[in-house]
């Protein structure tokens, strides 16, 4: 699947390249239980051979339902989880293999993360200015108090908050304001790349609009590159340049946003799009959704989607489909490859 990563159809140089990323969790029962119950070790393939790249200044979105591994990928990229194997190249350096702490720190400064729950991502015992100043001190960007205060005020203004708010504690803010504080913290070290893990899923829609607009403004102003993790297809459509669709830890389709939403190839992508409530009330014809996501510990054989797929045949139950080019994107589906998909 390295073909996807090294494909040169994009003009821009990829800022981030992920190749053959895999993450296996040990979900076995404790040793004693295994011995007593005669159970064997169990593992869960949270991420299974995923490859993609993100050109500078673009927004790449990973969509999927629960168990798709999208958050696991985000955590591996920012170093919160160790990949079982695979490469994560940031601006040419494989960050999974950086052994030198100083070099890792230099790299870390260039990519940051925005978390899902602004109620949990800010330390409740710290004042907002301390929270935002933390990366400045940790990365050794600034050390003098006055300079830090100036920079913190500047960051607060950047996310449309009042610099005087710095002395308050997180609980004094609404969810949307907290997410702004989290964004200010992420921007403190002038990063080039932000991993946004469901940045608006804990927020109300009217506040979500504020945050999405802010993210777009900041991207335009600083030329930021985003990896957006989301289950909300409308948000993805609004934000992303390109989209990768995950199902049970595997990429099933990668395509430019417009193509994915107007001409989805993979049956799962189609089903997902059909499942989105029809807010326009257009009464468009939709396929009824079938089945549920299988248990990721005991996934189906062959193509993971075959038990729910209307196009599945014998081959789909046996053989894992490879991600192959389709129009401007890639799709992993035997039916599409064989021309069986209408």
């Amino acid at each position: 699947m390295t073909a996807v990563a090294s494909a040169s159809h994009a003009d821009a140089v990829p800022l981030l390249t992920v190749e053959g990323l895999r993450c296996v969790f040990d979900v076995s029962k404790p040793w004693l239980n295994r011995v007593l119950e005669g159970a064997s070790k169990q593992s869960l393939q949270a991420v299974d051979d995923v490859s993609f790249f993100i050109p500078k200044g673009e927004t790449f979105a990973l969509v999927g339902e629960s168990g798709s591994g999208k958050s696991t990928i985000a955590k591996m990229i920012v170093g919160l989880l160790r990949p079982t194997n695979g490469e994560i190249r940031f601006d040419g350096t494989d960050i999974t293999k950086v052994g030198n702490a100083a070099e890792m720190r230099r790299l870390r400064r260039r990519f940051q993360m925005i978390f899902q729950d602004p109620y949990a991502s800010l330390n409740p015992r710290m004042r907002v200015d301390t929270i935002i100043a933390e990366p400045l001190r940790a990365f050794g960007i600034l050390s003098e108090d006055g300079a830090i205060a100036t920079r913190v005020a500047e960051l607060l203004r950047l996310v449309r908050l009042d610099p005087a708010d710095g002395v308050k504690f997180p609980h004094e803010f609404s969810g949307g304001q907290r997410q702004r504080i989290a964004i200010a913290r992420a921007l403190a070290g002038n990063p080039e790349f932000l991993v946004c893990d469901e940045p608006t899923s804990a927020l109300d829609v009217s506040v979500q609009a504020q945050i999405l607009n802010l993210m777009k403004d900041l991207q335009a102003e600083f030329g930021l590159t985003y990896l957006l993790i989301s289950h909300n297809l409308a948000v993805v459509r609004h934000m992303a340049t390109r989209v990768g669709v995950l199902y049970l830890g595997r990429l099933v389709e990668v395509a430019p946003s417009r193509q994915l939403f107007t001409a989805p190839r993979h049956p799962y992508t189609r089903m997902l799009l059909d499942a989105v409530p029809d807010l326009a009330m257009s009464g468009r014809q939709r396929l009824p959704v079938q089945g549920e996501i299988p248990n990721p510990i005991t996934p189906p054989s062959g193509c993971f989607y075959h038990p729910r797929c209307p196009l599945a045949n014998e081959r789909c139950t046996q053989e894992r489909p490879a991600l192959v080019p389709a129009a401007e994107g890639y799709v992993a589906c035997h039916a599409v490859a064989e021309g069986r998909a209408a």
Partner: protein
Amino acid sequence: MTETSEALLEVRDLVVEFPTRRGILRAVDQISFSLMPGEVLGLVGESGAGKSLTGTALIGLLEPPGRIASGTVRLKGQQINGLPPEELRKIRGRRIGMVFQDPLTSLNPLYRVGEQLIETIRTHLPLSEAEARQRAVDLLMEVGIPAAERRLDSYPHEFSGGMRQRVVIALALAAEPELVIADEPTTALDVSVQAQIIAVLKRLCREKNTAVILITHDMGVIAETADRVAVMYAGRIVEIGPVRDVIKSPRHPYTKGLMGSIPDPEAEAERLIQIPGSMPRLTHIPKGCAFNPRCGFANDQCRTERPPVRAVGKGSVACFLDEAQLTALSLEARR
């Protein structure tokens, strides 16, 4: 707001309050609406709007110190708020079914699904054990649970999230209630599962002519399911009307902002319409129209007086703007 006598549920000036040490907080502030048999009413709003509290107040499940301070709730003409707990318990389950966001709060993890279904059926309907069992199987089949007969003997944790919510729907419908109150029934579920649950709920309520109050923050779910929709803001209903009107041509400035802020999966837009600020906390509800600090049309009247709910088109709106202005607003709205 129709005031016909054949209304199934009639809510008048309902007020829910929480006494706290810093004064009494009004979480639901004089809301009125009615519901016809078989009708699906969406109650939509952002967090803090009071929509869930409205639902719990209707069925008498408010957690103390919360209380209904004034107003009436009538089920087929009979006032049900203020009834003794014993009477209310008979109404819940028998005449009003409930579906909550987290299926685990409705299902007892220690009992088999079948036991819970059969118990509910036999509490409310004069059926024998065997008849109740058969009915439980039928119900599970109706909500789309495969191998229903066998699944009766499973425990709640043995079901997936979507299947569990189906069981809860079966439980809510077990005694053939006239009304189901569904509070964020699909919020905890994946999109593909949500679509199935919505379909099941819609189909069954149509078949059985059960009315539904669907409480959700998700306009998409409302668009798919509801006949009419009431939009709540800071404990008040700001707009109520047929779902198509409210979604396609919202009149109230808040509804309009809310609709504009939802990204459209069908189209690309550079920027979303955003409403400045956020929902006020209960301790700081603005004077006059609660929405006035965030509203682009607010004038002095909006800042001092509370706008009355009045009929506009096929629905009602609580706004001081005159009909022509509201209509102009609705035409401006994209959808």
